[in-house]
């Protein structure tokens, strides 16, 4: 149970980064922390006590494997997080070219 709480605390750390930091790059890093903490939580859900890795090989029996389904789903989710971050970083570079700063309190042309 404690491990699940640690994952949620890591999620909250990432959320704090997205909400309170002023630099665009720090916001992106906070978002990355959020994504990875949820992936870790999802993989931890499939753990069995004294389980072994879910790989089938010729000399080992199929007994007491951890759940492989969350691991496959987290693989997909890491790819999605990679794509989002690549896009965000490209947008951040262009914003720096246009506005000259990374500070979000100064990037405020859209109001109302």
């Amino acid at each position: 149970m404690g491990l699940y709480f640690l994952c949620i605390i890591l999620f909250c750390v990432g959320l704090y980064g997205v909400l309170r930091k002023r630099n665009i790059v720090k916001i992106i890093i906070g978002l990355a922390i959020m994504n990875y903490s949820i992936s870790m939580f999802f993989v931890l859900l499939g753990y069995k006590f004294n389980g072994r890795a879910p790989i089938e090989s010729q000399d080992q029996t199929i007994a007491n494997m951890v759940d492989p389904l969350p691991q496959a789903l987290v693989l997909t989710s890491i790819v999605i997080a990679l794509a989002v971050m690549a896009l965000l970083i490209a947008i951040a570079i262009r914003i720096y070219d246009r506005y000259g700063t990374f500070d979000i309190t100064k990037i405020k042309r859209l109001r109302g």
Partner: protein
Amino acid sequence: MINNTKSGMSLIVRTVTGLVVCFIMLFGIYIILHGHLSPGGGFAGGVMVALSFVLLVLAFGKDASAARLSKNLASNLESVGALMFLGIALMGFAQGSFFRNVLGKGSHFDLFSAGTIPLSNIAIGLKVAVGLFAIFLALVILEKFKEGK
């Protein structure tokens, strides 16, 4: 391959990169091909192959990439990889439903087994490798920003 120009990193880095980069790519291809037998598969192997190209660019400067894998070629190869994957999925229609595993299954733990799974791994590995390298090129080797749209 060991150039004397100012771009890139020092002599030690360039020498070691020249010796090691082929092994990195080979290991990445091994991970892609054995995706149905051991952990890894298309995505993890593709990332390793992409990183071997990135290592080349980091060690030898920007011109090292244009000769081997330019941005246009990377973009086209990425689309080819995606279309290959879609073609493999459509092959399943021959035996009933979409994405069905239609090739021979072979015996357990062989390299040539499990039907269309190694082919899908190869298509995904190609797409991820070239796609990641294209992202790296687009972010690092920027054209100069021109005023106006």
